[in-house]
């Protein structure tokens, strides 16, 4: 159907996934607080949240396949770009919730609040993806961030969790100040906050030059912080390490995705006309991020922290797509984000399992001989690591290749070379986990009898993610087409939409 907003019900339809999740989140919250604490593991709250996500996914699917919008300048986009991203968020949130189920139970976290915060954060992400207005993006970002700040510090018995929460909060708020300042300057320069209006203003030259570029720079900084690009990444390792592991997975996957999606829409749609100016900055940020992220990951002794640095590096790869700014790169980014979400959460699922649903056993030595004790889990982890490393046969390779293709299309050869060379660096630390798992013996004093209980839910996530990764690694056609098709409406309508917004 066509959304023309003739009826206000159309607004409801346009925001259907968000609404579903919001309402469901409140329901989960109520369900959580209405049951007495300490009675049972509270897993059903989690499953309830998952049901909401499923419902949202369905609603999202209906929008994706069945709905188009009239014009494309509305504050909330109903384009496939947003909806594809929504799926990624739902997937990320869903996977995170599944791996949280045993964790939350074991750690006796407050299930209702926990799951509803995840859902609310997901709503914030969805708004970031949907917004064509910088202010909505900001609000979505804050909604997401506040949820995640709380999630990072959720485990009140754990100092590290509290520390992570504090650091994330202080620095996140600090960075959102920059983002906001950027929005203000851009608003002053172009007279609007709608990305299409911004684009139109830039295109017709009415934008005030003096305010424009500092605004763009600050905006870039704000997003760079959220995607953890060097040198705005400093919070990432600490927060990822300190936060409860399922939350880390959620952050690494979904939060980053949301930031990238918004980043992409603002810069590729709104600021497309200034590509020449900002691409240089992002080029350097991307290069530095790839190098620093990978290089520092080399020296990490904690798997969780290593994965944190690796996620920084992945952010660097994704920035390449932003610099390339062509359709191949953009769909590559979408594809990459999807794959990245799956494989990152999969990897963290193993980390959670090795840690016995706690924050224990995070040192790489703890993985010694793990593969032989838990062969299935070991193989899964190996596949996930290979995928993270971008090895052929896995979806990670296809995704990285897609980015390279985009970079090549824009003749970013140096960046492409940096990308592949840093990938080599990344092989080392990903393989290091593999070699501990398969080539070393268990550490002294480890309980070799039954080191890790793998709950059904975690297995579910692992099986699904590994299957998807292998399938998409070998037969990526459908997923690639989906990603490529999801660009529809992002920029194709941008020109006319800009014209429409101009009046």
């Amino acid at each position, binding site marked *: 159907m066509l959304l023309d907003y003739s009826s206000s019900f159309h607004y409801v339809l346009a925001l259907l996934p968000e609404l579903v999740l919001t309402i469901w989140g409140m329901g989960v919250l109520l369900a959580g607080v209405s049951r007495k604490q300490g009675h049972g593991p509270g897993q059903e709250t989690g499953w309830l949240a998952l049901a909401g996500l499923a419902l949202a996914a369905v609603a999202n699917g209906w929008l994706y396949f069945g709905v188009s919008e009239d014009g494309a300048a509305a504050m909330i986009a109903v384009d496939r770009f947003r909806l594809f991203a929504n799926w990624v968020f739902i997937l990320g949130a869903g996977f995170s919730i599944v791996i949280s189920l045993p964790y939350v139970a074991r750690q006796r976290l407050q299930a209702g609040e926990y799951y509803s915060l995840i859902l609310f954060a997901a709503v914030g992400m969805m708004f970031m993806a949907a917004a064509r207005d910088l202010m909505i993006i900001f609000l979505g970002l804050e909604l997401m961030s506040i949820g995640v700040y709380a999630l990072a510090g959720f485990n009140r018995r754990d100092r590290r969790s509290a520390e992570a929460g504090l650091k994330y909060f202080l620095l996140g708020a600090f960075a959102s100040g920059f983002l906001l300042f950027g929005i203000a300057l851009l608003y002053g320069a172009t007279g609007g906050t709608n990305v299409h209006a911004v684009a139109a203003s830039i295109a017709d030259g009415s934008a005030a030059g003096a305010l424009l570029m500092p605004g763009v720079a600050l905006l870039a900084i704000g997003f760079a912080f959220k995607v953890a690009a060097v040198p705005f990444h400093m919070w990432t390792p600490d927060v990822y390490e300190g936060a409860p592991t399922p939350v880390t997975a959620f952050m690494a996957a979904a939060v980053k995705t949301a930031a990238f999606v918004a980043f992409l829409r603002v810069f590729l749609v709104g600021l497309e006309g200034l590509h020449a100016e900002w691409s240089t900055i992002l080029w350097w940020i991307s290069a530095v991020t790839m190098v620093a992220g990978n290089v520092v990951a080399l020296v990490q002794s904690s798997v969780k922290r290593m994965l944190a640095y690796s996620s920084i590096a992945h952010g660097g790869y994704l920035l390449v797509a932003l610099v390339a700014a062509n359709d191949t790169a953009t769909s590559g980014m979408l594809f990459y984000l999807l794959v990245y979400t799956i494989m990152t959460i999969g990897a963290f699922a193993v980390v959670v399992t090795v840690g016995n649903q706690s924050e224990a056993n995070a040192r790489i030595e703890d993985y010694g001989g793990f593969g032989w004790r838990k062969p299935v889990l070991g193989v899964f982890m190996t596949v996930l690591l*290979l995928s993270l490393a971008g090895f*052929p046969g896995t979806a990670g*390779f296809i995704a990285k*290749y897609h980015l390279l293709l985009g970079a*090549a299309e824009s003749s970013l*050869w140096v960046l*492409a070379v940096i990308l592949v060379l840093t990938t080599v660096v990344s092989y080392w630390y990903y393989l290091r986990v593999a*070699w501990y798992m398969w080539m070393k013996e268990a550490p002294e004093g480890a309980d070799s009898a039954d080191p890790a209980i793998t709950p059904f839910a975690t297995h579910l996530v692992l099986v699904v993610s590994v299957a998807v990764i292998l399938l998409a690694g070998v037969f990526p056609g459908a997923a690639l*087409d989906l990603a490529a098709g999801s660009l529809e409406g992002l920029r194709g309508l941008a020109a006319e939409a800009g014209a429409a917004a101009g009046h």
Partner: protein
Amino acid sequence: MYGDWILHALIWLPLAGTVHVLVSSAERAKNVAFRWSAFVFVLSLGLWWAYEPGDGGFALESSASWIEAWGVGYSLGIDGISVFMVLLTTFTSAIAILGSFEYVRTRRKAFYALMLLLEMGVVGFFLATDIFLFYVFFELTLVPMYFIVGIWGGERRIYAAVKFFLYTAVGSLLMLVAILYVYFASGTGSFGYDAFVNAGLSLREQLWLFAAFALAFGIKVPVFPLHTWLPDAHVEAPTPGSVILASVLLKMGTYGFLRFLLPFFPDAARHPVVVAVMLALGVIGIIYAAWVAAVQPDAKKLVAYTSVAHMGFVVIGVFALTLNGLQGGMVVMISHGISTGALFLLLGMMYERRHTRLIGDFGGIGRAAPWFATAFVITALASIGLPGTSGFVGEFLALLGTFETHMVVAAIAATGVIFAAYYMLPMVQRVLFNELDRPENRTFADLSRREMAILGPLVALMIWIGVHPTPFLERMEPSVQAVLERVEDARADAGHTLGGED
């Protein structure tokens, strides 16, 4: 009868074997794996007859769309160059699996599964006619090898495995960027072989791309000075790993030279500076590696370095850009695969018996194990290129081909023949000859039936190729000729500078 299905079968049957191994018990794993690999080998033998040399182009071609969005196809084909590589692969895989029965005693299921997986990757690499597909298989071989070395290897296995992996990855990833460049330059939106051959690149572009490809393949070969991963990997790898590594994986590099490097970048390939550099590296490899090999106390390391020397002959043969040189290179590839594979198997047998690889720990084995000694001597002689063995035919042709265009290079390279004796004979002497002065060597068991079954075919092949190589030469000639013509045609219309120089 033999349709294109055979090629698909050769790739996917090992994978089926992998699965079969994984679901069978640890005790049966080796037999299951061996049967699968033997079956694949027998199946591949048909290619010997099924492949008609003809005009040297691809035969048994089949192509299906794989990743439509990028123009990636699942395209397979075989020609006079790859047919031997495939046969070598299936053959050595079966032999290596048979050769690991005693050596590998732990975690057998995983081991044999990885071996079959490796076979699949290598066969796929040799059969792929789509560049993307080729790249995928090229990389795919790293993982099983990484684990084979890292899990079943010696003391410093992890260092060796990682070194092997990273070294190779550096080259291959840079090649990936180069592949993308050609992909866009060709403008056909296809990763097909023909599209890449006809990409129409300017000389300047070709030189850069050549460098990237040459680096990737040069590491794999390995060409001096990119070789230092090889001794480590060989020393630490378990016997079957070494065998596959030497026999097959190194060939991926030289095969890449023939299949991709020369046809894709003919102008660069015959650029005098490029030729000079490659020949120089080849010659240095021959002599340098021979020298270094000669002073190794570890027998396996010694043989590893000889691989570098042998592959140096391939390099000079290829970059001499003569028919004889290329043919010689091909024969050296095959011969090295057989003889060095056999040497590693023999060293593995030594290790199984004595748990040491130091040459100095042996001596007088010839008395204790005459069959072993006989096989060892024949293999060593084939390795140093004695006429009548496979090694001679290859080295002779490679040197002759080089001599036709680069006399001095060939003259220097020919001294490698001396140094081959310089490294190999002392080892033979110190292992097999000399006094049987260590009591533990007195009980050195002679070859068992299984070991004879492993070495017998290898020795027979060494002698067969040495005495009657014509069936090999005539099958590969048209394809090699086609590669050569591609390079020479480019010379003919050297004026063209299509493609974007941007």
